[in-house]
């Protein structure tokens, strides 16, 4: 009753191929954008912006990036953290080399470097497949991490070995560095994420996105249909790493302010992978849902005891949070291995036939 698609006829292929062919979805998206761009900035406090929304958006973007590779092209990668790191270090170097160029531009450029690195590490994918490939992407992870530590040039030989973000302005507003307000940073992160998400959705529904999915679903058949496997996979690696690189650069420029090599460790890779899988492999919307779940849930879990007025130690909360997260991951995988995106579809389908069960 609430969710009726009937009566909406698509009269042209354009309309049928639109990102959101159904009216309700269009309205839904509009509402979400309105909330993101207007309601949240007007109402949220600094903590919500700086510690929830900004990381959430950064992670969403990274999850979209990994989703391109794993969800769409079927190449499981555990090196996301390092590719994000490449973006971050590249952006940092660029700001020291070109101090006067707009940081947003530099952040967007930095992705190119991680795209190149990603493509290089994607080369073995021609021969190595599946879980074997996943493990070899760990080579990228550990090797790059080692580079971040060992190559002093990358962090301008700072004694601390960390990169620290200088203060930069755009249009008279400070957008990076410690003085940037959470609101300014939020707008930057939100805009970049939304634009990239939109652009990549375009790619994913077109020829290139399809060729990735062909490789994912059955590489031999894809090849017999004229898809060049190496080229296609490398492209997926490059595009995915580009997005991850931008996300990594945003992570340090607009969220953390400083980063050590350990900020881009294997833990980060796993975090992103979780988001992708729980959100739903092969779904851009799912990446957002997954990111929200994995980032926000622990924060909420940690807040629960104090909200309830229960007095348990911080570490007990942490332990319980770990257990609950682990259990929930398993739980959701069992409930729906295809992630939140599929749950959402099923929910819609149920609404469509409501009040009948099926």
């Amino acid at each position, binding site marked *: 009753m609430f969710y009726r698609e009937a009566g909406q006829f698509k009269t042209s292929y354009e309309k049928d191929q639109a990102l959101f062919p159904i009216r309700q979805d269009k309205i839904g998206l509009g509402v979400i954008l309105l909330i993101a761009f207007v309601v949240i900035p007007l109402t949220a406090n600094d*903590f919500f912006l700086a510690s929830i929304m900004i990381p959430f958006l950064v992670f969403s973007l990274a999850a979209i990036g990994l989703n391109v590779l794993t969800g769409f092209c079927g190449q499981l990668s555990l090196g996301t953290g390092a590719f994000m790191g490449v973006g971050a270090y590249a952006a940092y170097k660029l700001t020291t080399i070109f101090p006067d160029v707009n940081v947003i531009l530099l952040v967007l450029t930095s992705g190119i470097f991680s795209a190149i690195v990603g493509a290089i590490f994607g080369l073995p994918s021609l021969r190595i497949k599946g879980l074997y490939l996943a493990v070899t992407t760990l080579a990228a992870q550990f090797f790059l991490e080692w580079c971040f530590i060992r190559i002093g040039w990358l962090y301008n030989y700072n004694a601390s070995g960390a990169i620290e973000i200088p203060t930069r302005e755009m249009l008279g507003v400070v957008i990076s560095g410690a003085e940037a307000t959470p609101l300014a940073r939020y707008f930057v992160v939100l805009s970049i994420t939304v634009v990239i998400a939109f652009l990549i959705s375009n790619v994913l529904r077109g020829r290139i996105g399809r060729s990735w999915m062909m490789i994912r679903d059955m590489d031999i058949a894809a090849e017999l249909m004229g898809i060049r496997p190496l080229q296609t996979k490398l492209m997926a690696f490059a595009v995915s790493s580009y997005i991850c690189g931008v996300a990594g650069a945003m992570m340090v420029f607009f969220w953390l302010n400083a980063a050590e090599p350990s900020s881009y460790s294997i833990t980060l890779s796993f975090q992103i992978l979780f988001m992708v899988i729980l959100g739903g492999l092969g779904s851009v919307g799912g990446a957002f849902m997954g990111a929200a779940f994995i980032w926000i849930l622990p924060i909420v879990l940690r807040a629960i005891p104090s909200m309830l007025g229960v007095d348990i130690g911080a570490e007990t909360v942490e332990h319980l949070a770990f257990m609950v997260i682990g259990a929930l991951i398993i739980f959701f995988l069992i409930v729906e291995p295809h992630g939140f995106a599929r749950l959402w579809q099923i929910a819609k389908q149920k609404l469509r036939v409501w009040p009948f069960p099926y």
Partner: protein
Amino acid sequence: QDSNYVPLLTYRTGPFAGSGIFIANGMNDYLQMLNERDGGIGGVPIEIEECETSYNAQKGVECYESTKGKGALVYNPYSTGITLQLIPKASVDKIPVLSVGYGLSAAAIGNVFPWVFNAPTTYWDGASVVVKYIGEQEGGMENLQGKKIGYIFLDAGFGREPIPLLEQLAETYGFELLQYPVPVAQMQSQSSQWLNVRRDRPDYMVMWGWGAMNPTAIKEAAKIRFPMEKFIGVWWSAGEDDAGAAGQDAAGYKAMNFSGVGTDFPAIQDIKTYLVDTGKTQTDEEMLGTTLYNRGVLNSVIIAEGIRTAQELTGKKVINGEDMRMGLEALNLTEERLAELGLSGFSYPIQITCEDHAGSHPVFIQEWDGERFVKISDWIEPMSDVVRPLLEAAAADYSEKNAPWPERSEACAQ
């Protein structure tokens, strides 16, 4: 509502929990004891809140963001990584960062880092003390000429921090500095590093280790039969559990320290009476008086005294971050004051000034006798003449690299 809010960023989980738990308990207990015994400081209770960081920078920043709005007075990140993240934020949010014997050495220059404190001493001071001590053992600094000193360190910001100073000293005194980085992922399998040590045969080994790295290193050293008396750790490698893992084999192992060991202090006894005996803490009795636990206590002593000084200076009972900074900057923990606190001899007197945020720097050396640590040296002064100019240069370098770095609002008075 009438309370001074002190968030404690701690880690009781993760790979460094082994060290983190001691610190966390020490910090917590002293402040809580003040609440129990004196009803807080200056008649106002301290509101303590722990936030678990797991030694993870992301979580650390999250803890910071989620607590700063509640009127946090000071932050103790207990991770060089998190400290580095907070340094630029501190001046914006006007909340001091107190890194007790860790963090950025250059932060000792109060003129450049008005919001960061690293009393009672810096890594660079510590490194100079080690070299000085080795020189003494060898019968004079001139005898360092041609010696080989190995430096094994956790390959992260923390371990790399003293390298510039050590390199400088190596040049000055003509010894050879050999570096053995231990990646975080390799903390528990250091056999390669120690094989390298065995091949290079350094005369002394210096260690900057933390967490699970320490016991492994000490065991490996014993395994290759490195002479323990020539193995000296930083004050973070001074835990009883660290040396205890190798038991008797570790006898002779030395470490620097700047906080008292043992429970023979009235204040520690008060913790026992008010908290341990009443079960109001997670600390069990054996933990009391251990090196790292006492370190945590010293940390809280500095916080508490900072608050007290601030209250005196401002006349307010409930203070804010800015007041806290004034308090810390005027902190003077004299011997008398320490005695009043029931901590006579617990620490060298600490006086923080506007220029010198590291207070006074001497440290002492303790030795593992197979069962516990014993203090074996007097307080050793660092080579301030060498360290201070280097710190100033490093601070200038930092502010330049992070230009535009905010100037101190009012220059140091003196």
